[in-house]
């Protein structure tokens, strides 16, 4: 029940809705008393042969009116209460999404996307049920229960009411007990189902091993056994499940039996009449649902509470990277200065970068080379403030990047990341991602700069071509170039290319680099790459090794140095040769 007080903020926010809904529930519980009463009166008059057509007409009219009114009210409270729960689910999803947009990469390292999705769907669904069905069953079982029992006791016979209710607590007990057993067995069934899921997943992933070793029979045996286990666990659920309704019907049957037997006795002793007995049994019918619901309530609330806790835990995580107090909103500009003594990822066991002291003048191009894991990407991610440096500082135009807002900082940076993530949208929308208001000529201009315009022209739908899961599949090189165009459209002072040319062939690459030189005069570019030719013409090149600068200079000076840079360069030349088929010419 604690979840109701946890959700109180929502109920208060929507108090009109909830108070109205609860009031209507009470009204409808009272109106529902009328038809059985009328039936009782008619039965009595039939028994005493006193019924007249006028009285019959009024009786029918009373039932008709209560039918129409309660239809309206039942519709209305559903709109109010269920409408509220749908609104709550919507609000929670909005909150979660908003929260997700504030979280830094660190958060996404720790959480699996599948789990985050599950919180936003299943958990929100369970909370919605608590705020809808949960509130309904709570209010309904209390109001209908009280109103009906009170009426039975007051207007018919309190003795008979007590007698008829004797088996009812057993029902609430049975429902909650079965509910609990069902829940336990159902969890086991779910676990078995997830086992078979995992197994099938593994089977499909390892299909080559299965085939190569002729393990089909064995896998079949495993699958059949696991599937059998799912069946068995579900049969054990079914065992309880099929007890459920019949148990209820026995208890209800006993209750009816007691009412009729003792009711008959009361009639004989003139303590009540046949019409009242009819009304009584009809009332008894109306009590079944609230009793059942009360049993269900515990299960709904238990699940809703657990889900609400999970969602709250998620919402309470504070973002690792946020604006510092007093941060300026002025977009920084000027030379970049790295001054990092040490940086370690929160989950890392050794420094990712150390002793990086580096100046990049405004308008320069910096080439960053080094093998995988040497720290190239980290250097860029720190500039973007995906992670914060504790041991050191990074300055742009003499201003620490920690003294401006995230928004201002990222406005001077255009980033084309390594994993070239594109959205399921049109090509134009993807290129204009950072500036959705961009005109088509602007989009075309950057597409030409990124050497992707010709490719786009070849698609039947041109810039309107849908890409991503539902659309055209692009090659790695095409994706990279779109990602570059997307970054170029930002028209930012500093461009970061994180190995974004790796899948582009040599000639296209030099076209892009030439276009960049031409169009980005006076603005800074950082290029991280495996391919040394890409940064041959850079103003300065650093060779990163194990998180620090191993060599530094221009292509010429590094070549002359005869160190790792030169070694890598020669090796790559030879590699090219092999790719081309080995002709030395």
């Amino acid at each position, binding site marked *: 029940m604690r979840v109701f007080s946890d959700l109180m903020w929502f109920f208060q926010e929507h108090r009109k809705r909830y108070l109205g809904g609860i009031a209507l529930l009470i009204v409808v519980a009272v109106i529902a008393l009328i038809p059985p009463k009328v039936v009782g009166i008619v039965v009595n008059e039939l028994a005493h042969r006193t019924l007249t057509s006028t009285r019959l007409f009024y009786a029918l009219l009373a039932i*008709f009116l209560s039918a129409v009114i309660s239809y309206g009210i039942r519709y209305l409270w559903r709109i109010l209460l269920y409408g509220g729960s749908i609104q709550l689910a919507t609000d929670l999803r909005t909150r979660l999404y908003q929260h997700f947009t504030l979280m830094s990469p660190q958060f996404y390292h720790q959480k699996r996307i599948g789990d985050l999705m599950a919180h936003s769907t299943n958990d929100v669904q369970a909370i919605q049920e608590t705020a809808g069905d949960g509130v309904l069953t709570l209010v309904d079982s209390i109001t209908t229960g009280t109103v009906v029992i009170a009426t039975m006791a007051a207007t018919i016979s309190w003795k008979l009411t007590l007698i008829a209710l004797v088996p009812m607590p057993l029902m609430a007990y049975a429902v909650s007990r079965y509910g609990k057993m069902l829940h336990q067995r159902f969890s086991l069934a779910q676990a078995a189902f997830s086992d078979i899921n995992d197994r099938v997943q593994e089977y499909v992933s*390892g299909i080559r091993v299965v085939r190569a070793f002729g393990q089909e029979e064995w896998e079949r045996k495993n699958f059949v056994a696991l599937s059998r286990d799912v069946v068995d666990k579900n049969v054990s659920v079914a065992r309880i499940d099929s007890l459920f309704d019949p148990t209820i019907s026995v208890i209800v049957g006993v209750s009816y039996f007691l009412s009729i037997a003792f009711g008959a006795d009361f009639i004989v002793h003139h303590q009540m009449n046949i019409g009242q007995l009819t009304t009584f049994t009809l009332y008894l019918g109306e009590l079944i649902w609230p009793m059942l619901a009360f049993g269900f309530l515990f299960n709904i609330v238990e699940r809703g509470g657990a889900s609400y806790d999970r969602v709250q835990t998620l919402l309470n995580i504070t973002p690792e990277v946020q604006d510092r107090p007093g941060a300026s909103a002025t977009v920084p500009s000027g030379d970049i200065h790295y001054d990092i003594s040490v940086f370690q990822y929160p989950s890392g066991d050794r420094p990712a970068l150390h002793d990086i002291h580096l100046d990049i003048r405004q308008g320069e191009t910096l080439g960053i080379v080094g093998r995988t894991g040497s720290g190239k990407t980290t250097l860029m991610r720190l500039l973007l403030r995906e992670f914060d440096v504790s041991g050191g500082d990074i300055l742009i135009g003499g201003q620490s990047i920690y003294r401006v807002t995230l928004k201002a900082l990222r406005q001077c940076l255009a980033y084309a990341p390594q994993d070239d993530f594109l959205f399921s949208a049109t090509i134009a929308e993807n290129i204009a991602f950072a500036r959705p208001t961009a005109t088509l000529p602007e989009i075309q201009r950057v597409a030409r700069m990124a050497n992707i315009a010709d490719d786009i022209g070849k698609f039947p739908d041109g810039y309107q071509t849908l890409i991503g899961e539902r659309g055209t599949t692009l090659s790695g090189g095409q994706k990279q170039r779109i990602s570059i165009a997307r970054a170029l459209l930002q028209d930012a002072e500093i461009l970061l290319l994180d190995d974004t040319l790796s899948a582009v062939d040599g000639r296209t690459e030099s076209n892009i680099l030439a276009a960049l030189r031409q169009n980005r005069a006076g603005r800074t570019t950082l290029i991280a790459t495996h391919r040394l030719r890409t940064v041959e013409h850079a103003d300065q090149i650093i060779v990163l090794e194990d998180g620090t600068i191993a060599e530094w200079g221009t292509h010429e000076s590094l070549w002359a140095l005869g160190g790792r840079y030169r070694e890598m360069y020669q090796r790559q030349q030879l590699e090219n040769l092999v790719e081309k088929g080995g002709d030395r010419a």
Partner: protein
Amino acid sequence: MSLEAMDFTPGMGQKGTLGRLLRYMLPYRKKVLASLVILLLATATDVFQPILIKIFIDGYLIPRHFPQKAMILLGGGYMLLVLLTAGFNVAQLLLFQVLALDIIQNLRVELFDKVQTLSLAFFDRTPVGVLVSRLTNDTEAILQMFMTVLSTFVQNITVLVGILIAMFALDARLAAYCLVLMPVTALIMMLYRKVTSPVFHMARQRLSLLNAKLNESLQGMSVIQAMRQEERLRGEFGAINNDYRRVRFRNMQLNALLLRPLMDGIYLLALMLILWYFGERSFSHLVNIGVLYAFVTYLSRFFEPVNSMLQRLNFFQQAMVSSERVFQILDNPDTAPQQEGTDHPAIHEGRVCFEDVSFSYDGRTDVLKHISFTAMPGQTVAIVGHTGSGKSSTVNLLMRFYPVERGRITIDGTDLRYFSDHELRRKIGLVLQDPFLFVGDVTSNIRLGNTFVSDSEVAGAARFVQADGFIEALDQGYHAPIGERGATLSTGQRQLVSFARTMAMNPAILVLDEATASVDTETEDAIQRALEKMRHGRTTIAIAHRLSTIQDADLILVLHHGEIVEQGTHQQLLAHEGLYYNMFLLQQGSTGLGAN
């Protein structure tokens, strides 16, 4: 094929799908019949209860005459009926549910068997998640349909019919009036289905849109943040979220209009009909209060089944979509190459011969062109070449993962097509690039399902490839648990376990798809020593990435764009100073710096 394409189902039509699904009940017709009989009994004892009360009211209560024997009979009879109903119901509910579960078990196994026969090409283009979902989630949705059809529809319709029969037995004229309820409820059901199924469909679609947006945003969050688009994306998500809310609200509104409140209303109208009938008759005839009581009771029971059927209609829809998807896989003609002929040729010596083999995955571009070579028994043939030169395709053909359509491959002079799967898998040992390990322990990963391999043979195989050292150092030795994809072991250790797995089969021919992954020097040495031992005395086809490991090969084939451009021994190829020579130089040159 994308996930969406898999979702697309060209119309077999729902009728055909449902019919085909129901045929899965045929093997169980006796059980179905038995359950139906019990269901009929349960319904009969159920609808008979109000009749006993009617007899009590009209025969004894109104005349105020209570003979003890009759009372005990009536009371005892009533309680007996209550208990019998409950007992029959427990039995039939359980029987129907178990039946549905058994049917699904069969369907699942049938589907799995079908998947086992599908070609690797099918696996290549079907995302893992989609296939897993077909085998588990979709069959689960079909289970819901069997539960719904069997448990809800059959039962509720039986109860409805039972109630009507009882009503006719009590008062045929009034029962005839009450028959009006049937078309009315049928009409409401149709109306409900008609108006809600587009809304329900829309809600599902909006939900998947919402999930897709959320999923994509979570994946691309770093891009969104780097480009400062959080605000806009929140807006977009908000719009979708709101859209979903509207559809959900609409759905709920329709439910509120057409489900319970409406049924409650109709119940009251029917109650009016009954009262009017008895009232009108009472002016001219004597009426039986007991009959009135029984009718009122039946009426209150009439709508529960209707309500529960209405609520299940949408599940039904969903199950149909799932079944169409499942049937699509069951009908997939793209099966893996099977043995041809009925002979049982055996592999003894292990002479492998490629004769002018060309191959294409998509029917357009050839990835292998006119490949011919022979590996004599015990020889090692190494295939080298850059990425995409066709090395792995050679292995795929030799393993008969794909059919050889042009040219032919023979083993010991017999065409590959004529061997049984069993013979091929036992005699050709494949060591894969990615040493895929299963969840389990070390022993189960070496033995796999080959129960004929004893524990000591497992240990022997491990010793042979010198994996025994590290295995015995593990906490539980040969029974050390292995996590998903072998995550608990290092890359090199995984390699060695997969070697042991191959050697436990003691194959005549060894196919090595050498790993590119770099491991520490010590493990690398262990791997090389193991490979050398494994190759000894076996025909070996080795795909090599490190030229240093194949210098002693009897024949080296250099593949370039699917063609053999150079062949010979290591010395011959070096003397030729061609592609092999360049590759060799490249690998000799810089071992320390790895440009990808």
